[in-house]
């Protein structure tokens, strides 16, 4: 009969209850086993008694015949097949007992692990939501974004004429569609409200694979020029404005005074952040007569194009094809498409491209924190393993195998890791919502941040790995020790070289990792400081801003709009406490970049070089309100209107570039107004030069800026700027009141102070710096604890030696020197390794920094000094302990 190890399924009926019984009613089974064997022995003895033996003789005879009763019992127990589980139970119970016996050690270890696991869980929940979750479209990997690019403007939106050509010429895309965001005023259920509208071509929703949840999206017919105006609602807007009423289909709604018929509802749940705020969608192709067609080929009005690759087509093939299409178009339309190429970028990259690197940096940082935490707990466990050498040796001598002892130690560390991990998870449950709240406006897809199943799995695995990492070190340390030696020395362990060695190595590693984190935090902090110190070219003190949207038909007439703006500017300036008020309106709806060329002295207009500038029209008062510094010439006034030759103001970057060393006043620029015009028919004379304004110093691409007279409001919107001597927030009700009195249907939106507005450029960096500094702080604390642990352990091990030295007349200074001789090499080694590693991180760090080199020697020197100071401070307590050693007591013990 071959031994049958695997149990066929039909036997489970019999065996499963037996296993359960073996596991949970062990005591009863053991008792029954005793009873059974006892009964056997008694019956056998009875037999002997019957054959004439005395009771005692019979008892021993029975025992002799039976053999080793205890061995038989053990063998019977072994048949129960759940031995390993019993061992585990025992180990767990023992581990809990050990952990409770050393509450100080347990608390420090648990807190350390909880910190490490907590920050990792929190950051991983962000990484998971932002980088790991797929986009909510069918086969999102095949989606790409197409944009145009020219030597002057590396990233441009797409002109509708080019989009149409791409669509008909390409063979690599299944489908493509254009998208452009505009705003309008909705007179719906409440007050008039400015909303964002996505103007899309009919191909867009099919390209993304988005089906309407009600009605239909746009057909090719509705996307034709001059088709009847139709609108598709987002689910959010449908709910908010129309209470999810299905009867909304076919109804008319008013957008900026124009009627639109509702044809469908789509869900924008999980859409890229750029799309999230869209409340409605209208057909883009309907506007073709205004902005499309060959005559408008150079209109780049903020349209981006989304396309779906055919199955099997690679990104490289798509890029190659778009390059050749761009070449063909360049030959056909040299004036508008000269030097232009097409950028093909995965949608994924567009959505999370900007945040992926900072998130990777944060994740790397918290993993370092976790490693430091591991090193710390490993260090603690190693010294405890030394203290427990006696216990381990006794258990070994009593017959516990080496594997069994190691399993027990590993069980203890795993238990520690899992409890610490659970605490960390609890902390993460508290921290993650706060983090998610801060990230919401700064990080795309942050709305999905939560501790979900994959985050829980990550936390569990991280905790388990943590336990194994820091459990292996002390297990080795314990193995390495000779049990016989452990018996010899009942006191605190001697400071054997290898013991100190392991802990010293751990401390050096901790210091090095902490320094890397400190350097990273220091460099980003310096970047932030640089950013905050940068000269913006304007003053944000006391300035309140808000937006107005002039898309209503009422403002189609330039005269009326100008009259409105004049009236508004004057009334706002007259408000009590207001020092200056003005309006600024960008030239275009999608952006404000227009092409221009500067007069280079030659008489021919077309000989100048074409470049791009930010153009906006400003009313009197706008420069004062913004604190923009006038360098030469005069400001713009209301009388610089259509009746006089066109004038403009340029910033000094433009003046320096085109007329270096000359007086810019009286020079001329030709502007493509209306936008897309290629002929630049009109010269604008420069009447003033202002200091350049940098709204986002982190943006290396500073376009020259041109300011036009107030009558050039072409973008359909304006920003209202009001400067006051006091807190500008108190002005908001009065600003609204003034606007309401002029036009009750014109809402003032995006109301915020200028400093808050500009803060949006800084906020992401600040969040990163805040997080990195927190992690670096934790790392510094843990590394300090690590150094403290090593030194305290060393002092304990050398109590006798120090006592003897003191008794022989060593001074306090000698003792300090003795300890520092141990500590300083550790600290310096850690710092040196940390500096070396930091220097090698130049490449990944550089893109995240601003105005500071990744190897900035001041930063590195400063944080290294900080690390050394903290590490030496950590030695103070052990030094004091060494000083308090009483030589008399030590000598007595000898």
């Amino acid at each position, binding site marked *: *009969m071959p031994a049958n190890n695997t149990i066929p399924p039909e036997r489970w009926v*019999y065996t499963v209850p037996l296993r359960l019984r073996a596991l949970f009613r062990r005591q009863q089974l053991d008792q029954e086993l005793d*009873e*059974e064997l006892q009964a056997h022995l008694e019956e*056998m003895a009875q037999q002997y008694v019957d054959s004439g033996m005395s009771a005692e003789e019979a008892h021993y005879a029975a025992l002799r015949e039976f*053999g080793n009763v205890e061995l038989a019992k053990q063998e*019977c127990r072994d*048949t129960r097949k759940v031995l390993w589980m019993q061992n585990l139970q025992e180990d767990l119970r023992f581990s809990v007992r050990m952990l409770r016996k050393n509450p100080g050690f347990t608390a420090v270890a648990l807190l350390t692990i909880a910190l490490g696991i907590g920050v990792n869980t929190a950051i991983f929940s962000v990484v998971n939501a932002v980088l790991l979750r797929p986009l909510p479209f069918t086969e999102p990997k095949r989606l790409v974004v197409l944009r145009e690019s020219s030597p002057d403007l590396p990233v441009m939106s797409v002109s509708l004429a080019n989009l149409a050509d791409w669509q008909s010429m390409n063979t690599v895309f299944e489908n493509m569609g254009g998208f452009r965001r505009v705003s309008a005023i909705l007179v719906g259920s409440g007050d008039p409200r400015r909303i964002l509208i996505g103007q899309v071509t009919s191909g867009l929703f099919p390209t993304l694979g988005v089906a309407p949840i009600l009605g239909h999206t746009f057909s090719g017919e509705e996307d034709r020029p001059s088709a009847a105006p139709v609108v598709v609602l987002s689910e959010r807007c449908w709910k908010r404005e129309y209470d999810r009423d299905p009867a909304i289909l076919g109804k008319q709604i008013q957008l900026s005074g124009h009627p639109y018929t509702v044809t469908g509802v789509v869900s924008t749940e999980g859409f890229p952040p750029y799309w999230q705020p869209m409340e409605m969608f209208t057909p883009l192709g309907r506007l073709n007569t205004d902005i499309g067609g060959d005559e408008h080929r150079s209109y780049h009005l903020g349209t981006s194009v989304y396309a779906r690759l055919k199955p099997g087509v690679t990104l490289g093939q798509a890029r190659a094809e778009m390059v050749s299409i761009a070449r063909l178009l360049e030959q056909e339309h040299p004036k508008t498409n000269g030097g232009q190429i097409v950028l093909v970028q995965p949608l994924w990259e567009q959505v999370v491209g900007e945040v992926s690197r900072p998130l990777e940096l944060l994740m790397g940082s918290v993993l370092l924190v976790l490693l430091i935490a591991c090193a710390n707990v490993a260090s603690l466990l190693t010294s405890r393993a030394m203290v427990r050498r006696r216990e381990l040796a006794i258990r070994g001598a009593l017959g516990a195998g080496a594997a069994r002892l190691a399993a027990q130690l590993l069980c203890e560390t795993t238990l520690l890791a899992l409890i610490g991990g659970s605490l960390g998870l609890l902390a993460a449950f508290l921290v993650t919502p706060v983090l998610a709240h801060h990230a919401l406006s700064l990080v795309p897809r942050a709305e999905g941040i939560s501790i979900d199943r994959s985050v829980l799995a990550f936390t569990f695995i991280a905790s388990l790995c943590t336990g194994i990492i820091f459990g292996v070190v002390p297990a080795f340390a314990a193995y390495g020790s000779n049990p016989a030696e452990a018996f010899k020395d009942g006191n605190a362990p001697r400071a054997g070289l290898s013991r100190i060695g392991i802990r010293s190595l751990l401390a050096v590693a901790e210091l090095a990792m902490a320094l890397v984190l400190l350097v990273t935090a220091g460099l980003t902090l310096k970047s932030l400081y640089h950013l905050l110190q940068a000269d913006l070219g304007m003053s944000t003190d006391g300035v309140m801003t808000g937006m107005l949207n002039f898309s209503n038909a009422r403002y189609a007439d330039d005269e009326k709009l100008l009259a409105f703006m004049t009236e508004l500017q004057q009334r706002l300036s007259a408000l009590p406490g207001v020092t200056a008020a003005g309006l600024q309106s960008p030239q275009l709806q999608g952006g404000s970049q227009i092409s221009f060329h500067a007069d280079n002295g030659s008489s021919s207009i077309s000989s100048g070089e074409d470049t791009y500038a930010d153009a906006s029209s400003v009313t009197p008062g706008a420069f004062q309100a913004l604190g923009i510094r006038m360098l030469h010439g005069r400001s713009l006034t209301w009388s610089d209107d259509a009746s006089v030759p066109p004038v403009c103001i340029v910033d000094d970057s433009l003046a320096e570039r085109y007329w270096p060393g000359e007086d810019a006043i009286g020079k001329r620029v030709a502007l493509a107004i209306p936008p897309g015009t290629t002929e630049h028919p009109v010269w604008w004379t420069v009447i003033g030069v202002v200091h350049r304004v940098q709204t986002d110093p982190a943006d290396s691409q500073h376009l020259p800026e041109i300011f036009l007279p107030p009558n050039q409001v072409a973008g359909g919107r304006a920003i209202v700027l009001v400067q006051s001597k006091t807190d500008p927030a108190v002005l908001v009700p009065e600003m609204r009141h003034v606007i309401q009195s002029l036009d009750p249907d014109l809402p003032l939106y995006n109301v915020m102070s200028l400093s808050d507005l500009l803060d949006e450029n800084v906020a992401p960096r600040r969040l990163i710096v805040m997080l990195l500094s927190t992690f670096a702080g934790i790392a510094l604390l843990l590394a300090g604890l690590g150094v403290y642990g090593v030194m305290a352990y060393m002092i304990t091990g050398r109590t006798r030696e120090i006592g003897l030295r003191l008794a022989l007349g060593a001074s306090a200074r000698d003792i300090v020197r003795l300890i520092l001789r141990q500590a300083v090499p550790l600290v310096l080694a850690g710092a040196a390794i940390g500096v070396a590693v930091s220097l090698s991180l130049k490449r990944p760090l550089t893109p995240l920094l601003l105005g500071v080199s990744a190897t900035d020697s001041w930063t590195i020197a400063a944080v290294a000094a900080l690390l050394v100071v903290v590490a030496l401070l950590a030695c103070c307590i052990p030094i004091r302990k060494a000083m308090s050693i009483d030589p008399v007591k030590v000598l007595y013990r000898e």
Partner: protein
Amino acid sequence: MSKPADLVQGTLDLLLLKIVALEPLNGFAISRRLKQISGDVLQVSDGSLYPALHKLEEEGLISAEWKLSENNRRAKFYSLTRLGRKHLETEAENWGRLSSAISRVVKLKEA
């Protein structure tokens, strides 16, 4: 002479199953029956009898019940389960085939 380890692997199991197949017995009675039947040729110490019984029980081939023995003592009585009966049939058949084959081979040598 033969210690239990020398028994052909699993033979003891077969013997035990056969013994309890006739009637439910306690360990002591099984031990006695084993000696009676095999006539001291198979010396199975009581120390190895019990682990073997417990193993069969854990495998679900026999089941145990506490009853009063002939001497009015509480004892654990083992009986064959349905699974054990099936197991016994196939193993007995295997054994028959194996032993006749072996004895044929052995006789062949003598001839």
